[in-house]
């Protein structure tokens, strides 16, 4: 645990990739197998589970520190992070240095390695009676430094995150194992338990991995500002950019599974597709998009959302939200890895395979015809009415690569919708921006009243965020819990991808992926858009 905390600090302290990578390599080379496995698991962002009720955690912190509960809450409000707040509050003058620090401080007493620590004090916590939970938490507080307590709280609340990209972790692991990054990404894919055995498999040979594991996904970059800079349009295969869930369908042995891009199994939400996959020959892997599909067009992401993260799907939902897999690549056929083949060849094989299979819920994504950028731009302009997000451009002679390398796959999205909206509520942010007001609720006019239509967290520069923060602090007119009502004075232009009806929002609609495009300091609140104009936009298919 101590070693892992050292790694966490090193990653947290620097934004330089080279230093992060060096810290990762040093850790993985030194850590025992079981600890290294857990570290990789956590750093790759595999979800942990909450093993303790955070309300209890606050109460125990209050008792332990001799503070009234309201003061724990006030502190949390000021700090913006519960794990950190409690880590600081239960500190009993342990003489540690700045911030996290055990730097330069020797401490006596042994602490388990990461794997044993998690086994006993994190996972083990869930199965205990309340009193035993309390006793274990208190004992653990006593054994840890402030920074370690912070990690402990993150682990038991299922909220562990670290500022390191999965690709970087894979690169460091590849270095330690002495293989290339794509190989490591492939080894990491699939179901993977954080055990010493799994670690050994990761480091040595990929034979031991999950037999149903997917290939690392090939991800696209946004096109450059001048799409012509990509070269000749004829070198690319254009497809619609679907607004669904990217997935790999893996059919091997007697089993069929659907993997999401995030590495989750999503079989539960799409049983009829999984069933159809059984018709395919063993040793088939298809890359495509899961879509809610109504006759000849997608139904929109909000319908698909009803299927996501389901363990099972009712008959009613099956009928209301029919789904299909829109296939756009073939990665494995008859057990053979096709990824080195050029796009055009893989496409040819995919078409043949899907045609022969002739399954009602398996379709091949159309190729969008257009031999010039002008023609493709015209096609792209029809994206919104087709219910797609724009175009994908895939270089015809490119292999299927791992991760997000530049050059071969590009996404060319339609221009987003925009609206001018007024800032009405603000809330403190999280992580790096905890304690600054960075979460904004934005509203449009309706009958002389401002109605919230979106929440946005991003889009401003750090400097602008500090200015908005200063404004918020000086213009609070009311408060509800952590929410501050501010005087409606600031106008922002927001961009978003679509509008969907919503019963949960007062405006009766919600925006997809809203973000702040710019601060309209030239506009007064009265110049902001109206709910009517938003509804008019919704009239356009989204």
């Amino acid at each position, binding site marked *: 645990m101590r070693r892992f905390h050292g790694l966490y600090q090193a990653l*947290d*302290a*620097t*934004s330089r990739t080279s230093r992060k990578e060096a810290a990762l390599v040093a850790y993985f080379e030194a850590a025992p197998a079981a600890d290294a496995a857990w570290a990789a698991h956590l750093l790759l962002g595999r979800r942990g589970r909450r093993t303790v009720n955070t309300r209890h955690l606050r109460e125990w912190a209050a008792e332990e*520190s001799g*503070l*009234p509960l*309201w*003061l724990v809450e*006030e*502190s949390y409000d*000021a*700090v*913006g*992070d519960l794990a*950190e*707040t409690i880590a*600081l*509050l239960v*500190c009993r*003058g342990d*003489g*540690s*240095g*700045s*911030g996290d*620090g055990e*730097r*330069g*401080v020797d401490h006596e007493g042994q602490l388990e390695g990461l794997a044993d620590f998690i086994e006993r004090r994190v996972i083990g916590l869930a199965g205990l009676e309340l009193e035993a939970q309390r006793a274990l938490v208190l004992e653990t507080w006593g054994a840890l430094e402030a920074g370690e307590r*912070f990690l402990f709280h993150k682990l038991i609340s299922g909220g562990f995150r670290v500022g390191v990209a999965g690709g970087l972790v894979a690169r460091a692991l590849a270095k330690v194992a002495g293989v290339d990054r794509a190989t490591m990404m492939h080894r990491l894919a699939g179901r993977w338990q954080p055990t010493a055995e799994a670690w050994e498999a990761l480091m040595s040979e990929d034979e031991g991995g999950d037999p149903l594991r997917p290939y690392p996904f090939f991800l696209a970059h946004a096109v450059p500002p001048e799409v012509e800079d990509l070269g000749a349009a004829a070198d690319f295969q254009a497809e619609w950019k679907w607004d669904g869930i990217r997935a790999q369908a893996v059919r091997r042995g007697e089993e069929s599974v659907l993997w999401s891009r995030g590495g989750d199994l999503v079989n539960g939400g799409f049983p009829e597709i999984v069933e159809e996959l059984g018709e395919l020959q063993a040793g088939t892997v298809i890359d495509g998009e899961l879509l809610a599909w109504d006759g000849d067009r997608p139904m929109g992401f909000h319908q698909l959302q009803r299927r996501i993260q389901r363990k099972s799907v009712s008959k009613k939902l099956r009928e209301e939200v029919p789904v299909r897999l829109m296939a756009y690549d073939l990665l494995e056929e008859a057990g053979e890895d096709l990824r080195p083949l050029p796009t055009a060849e893989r496409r040819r094989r995919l078409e043949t395979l899907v045609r022969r299979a002739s399954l009602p819920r398996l379709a091949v994504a159309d190729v969008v015809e257009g031999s010039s950028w002008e023609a493709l731009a015209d096609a792209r302009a029809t994206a919104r009415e087709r219910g797609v997000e724009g175009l994908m451009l895939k270089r015809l002679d490119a292999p299927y690569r791992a991760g997000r390398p530049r050059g071969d796959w590009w996404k060319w999205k339609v221009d987003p919708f925009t609206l001018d909206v007024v800032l009405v509520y603000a809330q403190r942010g999280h*992580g*790096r*921006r*905890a*304690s*600054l007001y960075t979460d904004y609720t934005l509203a449009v006019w309706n009958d002389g009243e401002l109605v919230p239509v979106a929440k946005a967290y991003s889009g401003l520069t*750090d400097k602008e965020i*500090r200015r908005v*923060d*200063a404004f918020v*602090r*000086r213009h*609070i*007119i*009311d*408060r509800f819990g952590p929410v*501050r009502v501010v005087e409606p004075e600031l106008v922002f232009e927001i961009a978003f991808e679509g509008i969907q009806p919503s019963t949960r929002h007062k405006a009766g609609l919600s925006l997809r992926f809203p973000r702040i495009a710019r601060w309209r300091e030239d506009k007064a609140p009265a110049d902001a858009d109206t709910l009517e104009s938003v509804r008019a936009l919704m009239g356009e298919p989204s």
Partner: protein
Amino acid sequence: MKGDLVTTTEAGLWCEAGGFHIDPWRPVDRAVVTHAHADHTRPGSGRYLTAAPGAELVRLRTHPGAVVDGLEYGERLTIGGVQVSFHPAGHILGSAQVRIERAGEVWVVGGDYKTGSDPTCAAFEAVPCDVFISESTFGLPVFQWPDPEVVAREVRAWWEGNAASGRTSLLCAYALGKSQRLLAGLNDPPGPIAVHGALDKLLGPYRDQGIELPPTRYASVEVAKEVRGHGLVIAPPSANGTPWMRKFGDVSTAFASGWMTLRGPRRRRGFDQGFTVSDHADWRGLLGAIEATGASRVLVTHGYVDPLVRYLSEERGLQAEPLASRFEGEGDGAEEAKPSDPEAATATLVEEAPRAAAVDDETQEPA
């Protein structure tokens, strides 16, 4: 409250019986000031009275030709109908609490204070009183300062580590108080120390009073060449990220502030390292100081006013109340103006300029 010895007016804390303001935020005839930080000492007043060890600093930070009188700690002076004396606040050199007595009733204005040890100024002295006016910059229990000696060792280790890998160490800290305190912790330094111009001119008053600081040189271009790769440079936080830094080559940056105890500000500020060093009292320091005065009534100013007031009332049984002021309580996580408190609301709406000037006091978490 009616009959109070100290009240607030448009210009600041006001002692009517003595006919003077304390740390006024507008020019007044007669200003009694607790210390030379910009949010407590503002230019333009007719006369200033401050503790003698801080008089030179106050002179430097007011307008040219300002009339500044110094009064030794503990010495009593009758002004109007009250007796006034200064007592060490332990905040920075010459910082004082102002004791005001009238007909056996004693009020103490704490100004900014800390209870931890600091070789650059006289230690905080608890002054028995009936009413204590306390700051609350770090008035939440999450603020617990580490042992300053441990931090001093960390600073030294950080510097030595950087030197070993050929990097210059750039330590950012407020120019008045914090920088001198950090320097004093670096006696017998492992390498040369250069200082930014903003604090170079503030070192004299310290050395003149016999406070031991290691040798420093103004960070000129030539000196920069000499310290590059192995020396330590001390500068105000505003210098970080500016072209001025370039002359030091590859640098590792650090920031010393009480706010560095929190991860959010630590990461947001973008320094390679944060050291928790504050010239304000932490939670326990505040509670200890308040208790030691024996005051039954406590008025709380700039910082986390509401939680401290509530804690003192409910948990300590004191008569605690917020006192609206325009000291820089507007920092990160600081108390916001509330609709129920129009006084505080206006207090934060005006006086934009001094806020920007107060960069040398950490009551404001630097943006």
